[in-house]
């Protein structure tokens, strides 16, 4: 069974907000489905644009198989910072899971896919957005 650590947010992200206990419920449920051994969650700092907790997790993956974040949109919005974090995970041959979207990253192909999702999401406010 893969040993992983949770990662949740204490602030809104991309206009979304989920209470911490709800984020943990989603992560726990995902781990159960994916047969992952979940060892509690680390909480990101509330300060805008802070990714200190995530960096710390990524830099201390030796005893773990990976991280499971609540959402892919909790990654840094800055394209370069996001890519660097993801590359570090791939380089260490670890996996980053995203519970809400049921996505995972362990290869460069996954990185491209996640990057595309992020870039489309970022450009959507500039596309047609009103339904009525």
């Amino acid at each position: 069974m893969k040993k992983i650590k949770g990662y949740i947010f204490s602030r809104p992200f991309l206009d979304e907000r989920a209470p911490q206990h709800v984020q943990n419920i989603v992560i726990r449920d995902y781990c159960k489905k994916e047969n992952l051994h979940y060892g509690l969650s680390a909480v990101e700092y509330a300060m805008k644009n802070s990714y200190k907790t995530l960096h710390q997790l990524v830099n201390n993956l030796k005893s773990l198989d990976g991280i499971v974040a609540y959402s892919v949109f909790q990654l840094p919005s800055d394209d370069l910072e996001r890519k660097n974090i993801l590359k570090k995970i791939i380089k260490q041959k670890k996996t980053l899971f995203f519970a809400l979207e049921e996505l995972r990253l362990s290869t460069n192909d996954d990185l491209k896919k996640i990057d595309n999702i992020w870039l489309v999401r970022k450009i959507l406010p500039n596309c047609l957005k009103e339904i009525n």
Partner: protein
Amino acid sequence: MAKKNFLTSEELKLSNNFKKDGFIIRDVASSKSLNWIQSKFVSLIKKELKLSSNISNIDILNFTHKKISISNLNNFRLKIYNLINKEPDYRYHYFQVAKPFIEAIAGNELAMQKKVNLSIQLPKDDSSLLAVHSDVWAGDSPFEIVVWLPLVNCFKTKTMYILPPKKNKIFNKKVSKKKYSDNEKVYRLIKHDVKWIKINYGQVLIFDQSLPHGNIVNKEKETRWSLNCRFKNTFTPYGDKKIGEFFEPITLRAISEIGLRYKLPKMK
């Protein structure tokens, strides 16, 4: 002189049919992909229900009700749904069966639902019904289309119905004037106006999920197996089903990928 239309005559025909009827039915664009999908399903069912290999694919699907009870149906459906959605090429083949029709209606930079839904309607089962509804009423974006693929022939009560756009306009006026307390009353209101979809294995249905649609108890002697999956243009508005968690881009084109990553040079 008449102006040339930018769409091809086939695209135009498809678009006009879709706008007029609220759906189109076509022979699948790739029989190879359809066979791949049906064979995968049959092999999962055979394994799960421990069936012998001398039964034909179509009989296994049409007569599933002889091997599974209504009370076990949902667990069985979820098991097959999870297994088939783990097949890495499943969504690729699903897209291939309807690619040119989807592109004619929704464009070619598409976002596709991440998991293809599975519906199994056993005869006389009232536990798997989808009462009259429009997906948009429940938060879907009106920019989505549903690609509905039967694994067996579907007819009479073994199929689904849809309210055509013209009738929907009348329906919208009616419901805005009077309160209808439940879905059954809403269904009675449109019962004589809905179009029942007759579709055979080998064909694919694409419909406008903003129109009221649903099904009733399957009173035929065969089980219905059908799949459905939403597609939309990547850059149109999303409803409650978001990019990332529900949809993912599948056919981004080169200049979009370049544009998405473009940064203006920092000039002094």
